[in-house]
């Protein structure tokens, strides 16, 4: 059964040892962000901070989706499932979307603030990192925007910074879905674009907004599929759109249909682990209403070095997008991993290799996908004997099977994102980058008996009877690992079946 709201999910995290309730007073000014950041860097439980300085009655939390374990809890599967099991569970559920249902009364509207009473500084929102341009009310949330002339409602995770009591600033990139809606529809038709920022849902409803779902397709259906239950929506109090009824906070407003209504925004520490986003005049989001639950919980992600919620969401959902593309093009994929440790810039694919140059076909397909492709810098392609979810194995094949000349293809003059740290300022401004393919597969024309060597690992270089015998006695001779169980689970793979 799906979690009804963030609070039910937090109970599940706590039950599994993945939540710590902090009763000490915590300062929203840097301290809350620092606590969440350290918890993520230590791969620790999520902190729920129950007493926030200056904001009695409001709470903050973060890092609730920053590991495969937490991701498994989010969709109600065994927290100790292995990585491919978690990833495949998400991938399979994504294929079966479920439409939302509309409700008339909603917890997210237990408190309603409109008109002159609106003051964004009355909502607890963090100063995430020292040196950020301001208080980012929206770092782990999503913005819902209705399409101008269809019933599509886009959900996207776009940051928002408080400018003053009633205005937020944020980055809208034309290549993103919200940018498509604004720049190609509302702006030319000179109509204000309604929006609603949704803060604090159970994780699935929020993470779907962090990955591409496609123009014209509402992420709420995707969330329903992942939850195995529909999302409940309620109509906003001041704007013509619907939002999750069980969210903690909703901020409603509009964007003026002009390029003149701008406010400076940034810098802000980004998902790459660096503060890359330059300061620039960006979109002004005007606020018309704030609604929230009683004793609400603000969800925050002080983005930074991996692994935090953003890397995990990208790893899981963009992987599905990429897998769909490769499956649609009949690529014989064995495994596909977007290691969260590499912030989504690197994709590792293992294949059964029926034709030459498959690595470049894979790269061309992945580089060309909308949104997902923008972030990728490298594609590493391996043979089927590499466990792509084991980064040590990936590093090993890079060191031993990748030929610097024959195995490398540079893709120049590619479309890039302005947030990528290694790009020069000029490249960031013009959205230009280059990409690379590392083909770590054995060449098809190499002889299996003369050219292709045998890998010397415990699992490859010994006969099965020896492997079995060693695994049987492993704990008996004094080692802690239960190798008998591990061998039983994996022996099918090792026997070429």
């Amino acid at each position, binding site marked *: 059964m799906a979690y009804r709201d963030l609070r039910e999910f937090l109970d599940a995290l706590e039950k599994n040892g993945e939540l710590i309730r902090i009763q000490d007073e915590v300062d929203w000014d840097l301290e809350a962000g620092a606590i969440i950041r350290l918890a993520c*860097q230590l791969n620790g439980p999520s902190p729920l901070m129950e007493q926030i300085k200056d904001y009695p009655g409001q709470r903050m939390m973060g890092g609730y989706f920053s590991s495969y374990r937490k991701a498994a809890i989010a969709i109600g599967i065994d927290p100790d499932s292995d990585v491919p099991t978690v990833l495949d569970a998400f991938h399979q559920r994504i294929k079966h979307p479920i439409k939302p249902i509309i409700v008339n009364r909603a917890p997210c509207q237990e408190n309603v603030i409109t008109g002159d009473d609106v003051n964004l500084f009355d909502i607890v929102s963090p100063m995430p990192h020292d040196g950020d341009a301001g208080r980012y009310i929206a770092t782990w949330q999503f913005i819902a925007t209705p399409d101008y002339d269809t019933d599509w409602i886009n959900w996207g995770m776009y940051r928002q910074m408080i400018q003053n009591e009633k205005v937020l600033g944020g980055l809208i990139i034309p290549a993103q879905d919200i940018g498509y809606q604004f720049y190609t529809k509302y702006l030319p038709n000179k109509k204000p674009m309604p929006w609603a920022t949704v803060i604090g849902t159970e994780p699935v409803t929020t993470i779907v907004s962090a990955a591409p779902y496609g123009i014209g397709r509402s992420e709420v259906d995707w969330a329903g599929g992942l939850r195995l239950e529909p999302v409940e929506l309620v109509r906003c109090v001041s704007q013509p759109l619907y939002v999750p009824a069980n969210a903690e906070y909703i901020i409603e407003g509009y964007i003026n249909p002009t390029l003149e209504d701008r406010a400076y925004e940034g810098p802000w520490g980004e998902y790459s682990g660096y503060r890359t986003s330059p300061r620039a005049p960006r979109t002004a989001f005007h606020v018309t209403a704030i609604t929230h639950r009683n004793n609400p919980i603000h969800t925050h992600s002080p983005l930074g*070095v991996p692994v935090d919620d953003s890397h995990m969401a990208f790893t899981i959902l963009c992987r599905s997008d990429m897998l769909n593309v490769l499956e649609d093009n009949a690529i014989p994929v064995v495994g596909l991993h977007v290691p969260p440790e590499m912030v989504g810039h690197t994709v590792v694919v293992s294949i059964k290799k029926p034709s030459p140059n498959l690595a470049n076909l894979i790269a061309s397909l992945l580089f060309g996908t909308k949104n997902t492709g923008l972030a990728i810098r490298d594609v590493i392609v391996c043979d089927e004997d590499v466990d792509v979810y084991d980064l040590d194995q990936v590093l090993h094949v890079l060191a031993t099977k990748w030929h610097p000349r024959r195995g490398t293809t540079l893709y120049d003059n590619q479309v890039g994102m302005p947030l990528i740290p290694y790009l020069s300022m000029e490249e960031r401004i013009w959205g230009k980058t280059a990409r690379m393919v590392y083909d770590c597969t054995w060449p098809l024309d190499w002889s299996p008996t003369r050219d292709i060597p045998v890998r010397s690992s415990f699992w490859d270089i010994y006969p099965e009877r020896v492997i079995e015998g060693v695994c049987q006695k492993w704990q008996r001779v004094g080692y802690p690992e239960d190798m008998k169980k591990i061998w039983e689970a994996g022996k099918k793979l090792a026997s070429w079946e």
Partner: protein
Amino acid sequence: MHERPNRRLAVHKGFGWGEDAYEIKQREGREVYDTIILDDSLDKLLQEQEKEVTFSIRLLAPENRRMKYCFRMVKARISKDAKRYPDILLIRSQRGLLFPGNWSIEVLEMYKDLQWVAHTTGVLT
């Protein structure tokens, strides 16, 4: 990953993280603001001294602490001389680093609206 402290990047040495603004205010009895500039040096900002300029500042020590980091557009005069004008202005780079040394500011007018203003030198925001 990143479980332990690591060396900091040498080229960022000197660009401090900043003292608590309320402590500065209490010690000096002056308001404390900061502004984020678009250039990577203070050269262009020096040209904005001693004249009326309109730009955005952040309130770093407002009476109501909830309002900390609120932006306000101001018409003001600024100076590299920390004592020339009544209040304190800290300068941050567009990557968020704090330049060493306080400037001073005299706020002539403060506006609630935040409209982007084009500047001749392009350094103020």
